[in-house]
């Protein structure tokens, strides 16, 4: 089935087929290890983590309430920088969600078995990230309670929405992305909740799990349709990964603001999204595997592969930045040229250079295997990438807007404490949801991992998988 042991021993280390689980793992031991968490009291670390993230989240939510009550004037947005932290945060969080879908859906299509142990967590992160993202378009409008006007419903004003606007395409794209991700995640959870249903003796949890598992009984005829649905959803979700962040990039690229109207924006944004998302996944998984003692399932190999993806994406980002710079010159367009020079030499040039260092230079350290397998280096890179990708959106939005065509409109941008508080609050929301998820649901898709354990599939069917 797999390359035989003798061959493995002969090969240089870099070529050997990695083990996806460390030590003896059986379906039963897997259930015991992973499903014990929802059933028992969480460790103290969880309480501390939850307390911190919930407080930060509450701070953010109160500041959002204050903003809605008082008005957008409490933010730093002002002419000509009409989009600032609000849209930066929106794009940032939508981007982070994309890694989850990639791991969950695209790697499923490629039959990469290493995805099984981390897919569940990654999908959950997608949903939470999209929830965080969705807050921002809602609150950045002057009258959020009229947000339902964005949907084309028949109304007394006899008006329809403007379908030619990318802001409306965003509404459809992000809501579709959320629904599809939620459905994909929930369907994946059903067999695992069935396991939890059959393990628990708790009188309150058992009926809850029964209802949530929909009465799943593991029938082969059901698995057949289930696997088909999963494959189709993976294919559809893959299309979404490309399209959602492309639609987000259209918000900028269809405009005429110099530095925004670049055709490379769609794939550039998608690449950046995957890049930032993987960094966040690495950070969260490092913590999870340590605190929940899952190192035998979320192995060093998993982390190393994810770091390689981060490295690859960093190189693609480098290509994109190069193309932006080259085109700024090649176009011989004085506005585009000036906008680019502003990025690297203007008032906010520090943000521009921070972006390039964090996104292109620092991740290059991952060429070294030692960095890919060391917590210190990989976390350093992951945090640099998170910061760098946030600042990249800052550069795109604020730097281009504060100095565009009309010099008399040029003006600096300064965020307020409310802006910063809401940004922090969004992180608080995200991590609170992550903590809740880890407390209540299985963080590893036990069903999927069981299916790839050695001996899990009948042997006479033949065939190793990749």
């Amino acid at each position, binding site marked *: *089935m*797999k*390359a035989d042991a003798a*061959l493995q021993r*002969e*090969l*240089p280390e*870099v*070529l050997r087929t990695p083990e996806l689980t460390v030590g003896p793992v059986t379906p039963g031991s897997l259930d015991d290890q992973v499903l014990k968490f929802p059933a028992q009291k969480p460790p103290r670390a969880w309480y501390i983590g939850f307390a911190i993230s919930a407080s930060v989240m509450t701070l953010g939510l109160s500041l959002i309430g204050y903003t809605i009550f008082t008005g957008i004037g409490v933010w730093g947005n002002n002419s000509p920088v009409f989009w600032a932290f609000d849209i930066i945060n929106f794009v940032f969080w939508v981007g982070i969600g994309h890694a989850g879908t990639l791991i969950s859906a695209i790697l499923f*299509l490629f*039959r990469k078995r290493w995805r099984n142990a981390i897919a569940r967590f990654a999908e959950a992160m997608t949903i939470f990230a999209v929830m965080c993202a969705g807050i921002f378009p809602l609150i950045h409008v002057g009258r959020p309670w009229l947000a339902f006007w964005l949907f084309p419903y028949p109304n007394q004003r006899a008006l329809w929405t403007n379908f030619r606007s990318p802001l409306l395409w965003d509404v459809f794209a992000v809501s579709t992305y959320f629904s599809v991700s939620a459905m994909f995640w929930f369907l994946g959870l059903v067999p695992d909740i069935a396991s939890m249903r059959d393990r628990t003796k708790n009188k309150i949890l058992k009926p809850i799990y029964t209802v949530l598992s929909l009465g799943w009984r593991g029938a082969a005829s059901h698995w057949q349709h289930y696997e088909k649905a999963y494959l189709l959803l993976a294919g559809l979700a*893959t*299309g979404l990964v*490309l*399209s959602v962040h*492309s639609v987000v990039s*259209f918000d900028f*690229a*269809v*405009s*005429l603001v110099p530095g925004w*109207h*670049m*055709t*490379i*924006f*769609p*794939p550039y944004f998608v690449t950046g999204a995957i890049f930032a998302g993987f960094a966040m996944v690495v950070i969260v998984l490092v913590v999870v595997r340590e605190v929940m003692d899952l190192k035998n399932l979320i192995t060093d190999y998993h982390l190393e592969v994810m770091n390689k993806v981060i490295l690859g994406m960093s*190189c693609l980002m480098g*290509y994109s930045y190069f*193309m*932006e710079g*080259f*085109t700024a*010159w*090649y*176009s*011989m*367009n004085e506005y585009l040229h000036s906008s680019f020079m502003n990025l690297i030499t203007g008032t906010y040039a520090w943000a521009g250079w921070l972006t390039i260092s964090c996104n292109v230079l620092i991740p290059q350290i991952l060429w070294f295997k030692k960095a890919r397998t060391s917590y210190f280096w990989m976390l350093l890179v992951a945090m640099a990438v998170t910061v760098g990708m946030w600042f990249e959106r800052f550069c795109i939005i604020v730097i281009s807007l504060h100095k565009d065509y009309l010099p008399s409109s040029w003006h600096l941008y300064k965020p307020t404490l409310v802006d910063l508080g809401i940004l922090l609050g969004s992180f608080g929301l995200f991590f609170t949801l992550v903590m809740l998820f880890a407390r209540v649901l299985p963080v590893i898709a036990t069903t999927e991992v069981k299916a790839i354990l050695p001996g899990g599939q009948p042997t006479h*069917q*033949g*065939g*190793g*998988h*990749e």
Partner: protein
Amino acid sequence: MSDARKSSGPVLWVTLLLGLLGVGASYALAGAERFWANWILWFVYLLTISLGALFIVALEHLVGARWSVVLRRVPERLSTMLLMLVPVALVALGAVLVIYPGARPEAAQNKILAGKAFWLSFPFFSSRTVLFLVLWLIGLAVLVRGSLKQDESKDPAFNVRARRFAPLFMAFFAFGVTMVAFDWISGLEPEWYSDIFGVYLFAGSFLSGLAATALAIVYLQRRGRLQGVKRDHLYNVGGFMFAFTVFWSYIAFAQYMLMWYGDMPEEIFWYQERIQGPWLALVGLIVLLNFIIPFFALIPRDVKGDTGRLRWVAGLMLAGHLLDLYWLIFPSLGKGVLLSWPELSFALFFGSAALLWVRRAMEVGQDMPVGDPFLQEGLEFRL
């Protein structure tokens, strides 16, 4: 040598000669611009196929794919066409001073071109082309020649070397394809620019490489060779063709939609030239061959693993890619849709040359990389 091969060889030499006569005649009779446009078209077409094939090889090493080892020799052989393209490229440089406005003396008067005339000038243009040709040939040497050598030596050190070299090759490839797109194609109208153009050409190149690989696999299997490649492997190849058809369509649409939306005179003129009159019909054909047919034909699970249908789709995709390049290049001449004996001669000439080369290449080395330690795993791959 099979009978089929014995009979097709002489035919191809005849068509090659006929084509060569037509090519020579078109230089004298059809005008230099038309001659060069055709030359560039076929140069870029065959280049993107060879580079696409080499990219497939490098990608397999980069990600350490095991299922694809069984068919890796096919794109390796296809990529050797790069060697044939070196003289083609050097001849193509003759076009620079004829149909590339940036290199011509008038550029100094043009407000937009004057600032970058040095970049577009012949010395710089040709050095870039030569530089990347050298880098690609290095890639060919490391990846393909090394693989062929491994047939005998059976030394896994090649895999390690290839794996380490693959990322570097990706840089050569990424910037190289971008150079081809900007210099050879959009350089025909150097006032225009689109920074996704390199990605667009990459998508077409990868797809053509895949389609050519699929066709070559079917060709070999129909001759009783390459029996190690099963439906399961072909399913993956078909799957990639489907996925990247979607990707190519997305890139093509994104570029068009963004320029349509902005409607800026300095950008939209390029599209306006390409949707006037008869060109619009060609656009419809390109959409049909590059998106509609492959998309709907490759969705059913059966087709992806079925050699019969797969070769039709692959063939149509290759034709579609040629038409796409034609649509990118020829409108720059401003002479309407040119389709007559010069174009047919070039097709005969270059088509025959490519087929002859590929036929010969299919005899190089073993059909599968027998020295690769992961060949067995690849053979055992089942979905």
